């Protein structure tokens, strides 16, 4: 499978924690406006790899990266690239909701405020738009000034998504977004992802294979820091080409 005009093109990416190599020579093309899932057993590096796409690994001491990550024709690891700006274009949703202990409204407009947007009407519009996109508007529209942490787990996670959408990225990275949620909330999040891909490129890390099968268009299987197989989801889950992939999918190891 070859992907032309990928949104993200990664070539020969390796990552080292001090002297230990965590990611080995990964090359992958991620298409735009589709959902790509990273699966693999615990510790295989899928979350670490996800974080290289918005340079969140820079925040960890002792991390060294070789190889290229090219988004929209720009190598995001080149010298002097504005990383702060990069993170505004590549949004991230974390495994556990990390809403700020502020009101629902203030959480969503956090990104806008630090970008200098102060006009209340504009902020209001941002809040309504992103909450609608995150399918949570009806539930919060009357409680915008309440503490965001008073929401349920599933609602909080959807709010995190709304907060990420507010800065208008084109790519959204999700690190196991539903792993801490109950089945009903999980279903809502998956529905949300399906809607979002119309306008955003989504990369989702999940340890739940069934979720990957349900939600994604393309799936990449990682194992001990290497990319083993990458193909259309339908193919990976029905006729994987590599034995290791098949073993993982069928549960021979986990």
């Amino acid at each position: 499978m070859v992907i032309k005009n990928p949104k993200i093109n990664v070539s020969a990416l390796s990552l080292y924690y001090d002297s230990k190599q965590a990611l080995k020579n990964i090359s992958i093309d991620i298409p735009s406006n589709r959902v790509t899932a990273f699966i693999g057993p615990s510790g295989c590096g899928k979350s670490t790899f996800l974080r290289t796409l918005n340079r969140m690994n820079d925040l960890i001491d002792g991390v060294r990266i070789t190889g290229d990550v090219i988004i929209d024709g720009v190598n995001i690891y080149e010298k002097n690239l504005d990383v702060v700006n990069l993170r505004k274009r590549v949004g991230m949703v974390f495994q556990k909701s990390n809403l700020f202990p502020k009101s629902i409204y203030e959480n969503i407009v956090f990104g806008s405020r630090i970008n200098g947007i102060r006009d209340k009407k504009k902020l209001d519009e941002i809040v309504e738009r992103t909450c609608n996109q995150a399918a949570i508007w009806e539930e919060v529209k009357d409680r915008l000034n309440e503490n965001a942490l008073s929401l349920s787990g599933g609602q909080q996670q959807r709010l995190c998504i709304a907060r990420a959408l507010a800065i208008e990225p084109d790519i959204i990275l999700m690190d196991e977004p539903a792993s801490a949620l109950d089945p009903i909330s999980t279903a809502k999040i998956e529905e949300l992802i399906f809607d979002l891909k119309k306008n955003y490129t989504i990369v989702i890390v999940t340890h739940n294979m069934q979720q990957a099968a349900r939600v994604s268009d393309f799936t990449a299987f990682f194992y001990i820091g290497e990319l083993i197989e990458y193909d259309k989801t339908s193919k990976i889950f029905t006729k994987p080409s590599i034995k290791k992939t098949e073993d993982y999918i069928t549960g021979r190891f986990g």
Partner: protein
Amino acid sequence: MKSTENQIIDSLENTEAERSENKPADQKYTSPYAKRISKRTRIKEKIIKYFFALHGFTAVVFILLIFIFLFKEAWGAFNHIGLVDFLYQESSQTGNKIYEWYPTSENARYSLIPLILGTLITAIPATLISTIFGIAAGIYLSEIAEGKMREFLKPAIELFAGIPTVVLGFFMLVVGATFFQDLLNPANRLNAFLAALGLSLVIIPIIASLTEDALHSIPNEMRMAAYGLGATKWQTIRRVILPAAISGVSAGIILGFGRAIGETMIVLMASGNAANLFVELFRSVRTMTATIAAEMGEVSHHSDHYYALFFIGVVLFTITFILNLFAEIIINKMRKKIKF
């Protein structure tokens, strides 16, 4: 990429062709990702970082300044008085060594020995008493007191620590002196014992607090292991938890001792302030700290006496500095052990 299917997927088909619509044909497309950090922002963030870094070193700077300026004013002591004189003075008549602190006499004597002995005879008993009470309090708070009681009692001990030392000195002077005079009939009304008691009131919270922290940080799994082997509560405390926390407890004792040595107001008010050589628990004594406090106001600038007092300050600072360093090393070792 390892795949056998030769399918070509064009990613651009997925995106709406917005981008190509909005740009005039002759304009080169600059990706929003290509933005470089502006020099201005880089400089701004660096300035902010240096601003904080400057403040970060204030504590270090002040420790150095204390060293420097104490030594600076005490320097005269080496020139004008001489190191030996701080230990003893040889009597020109009898040839005996005289250990006296009597800077205001015609034949000024600057022996620190009576003062050091005075400090020790107040600090050591105080530390002994405080160790017993402090460790007991720490054990109680960490192992015996339950939930709500603990929430209430731990602040009570902290409150103890918040009492100004001058108030404790006052209490000892006005209440304690009379009480113990009737009870024990000491040689002097204000004496080392009284001062030691007052010091204990200050040091007990220190030892209690550090002991409680050390005991509490021992993971519960260890207690469970001991109980699971049939140990009683006291056996667990005595044989498992206390030994495991020994570094924290020792650090507390060392810090407490350092505090006892450096404390001023309580000894100034309760110890009687007589610089004797033959120190006794129930006689008046003079500590190093009280000497500085009592005499500094009277000395003339840059006189020998002035230098001598600063010299005492240098000695005090050095002793407590070493004790603190020692305690710090022990606490760091303890932290390393707990990290698993």
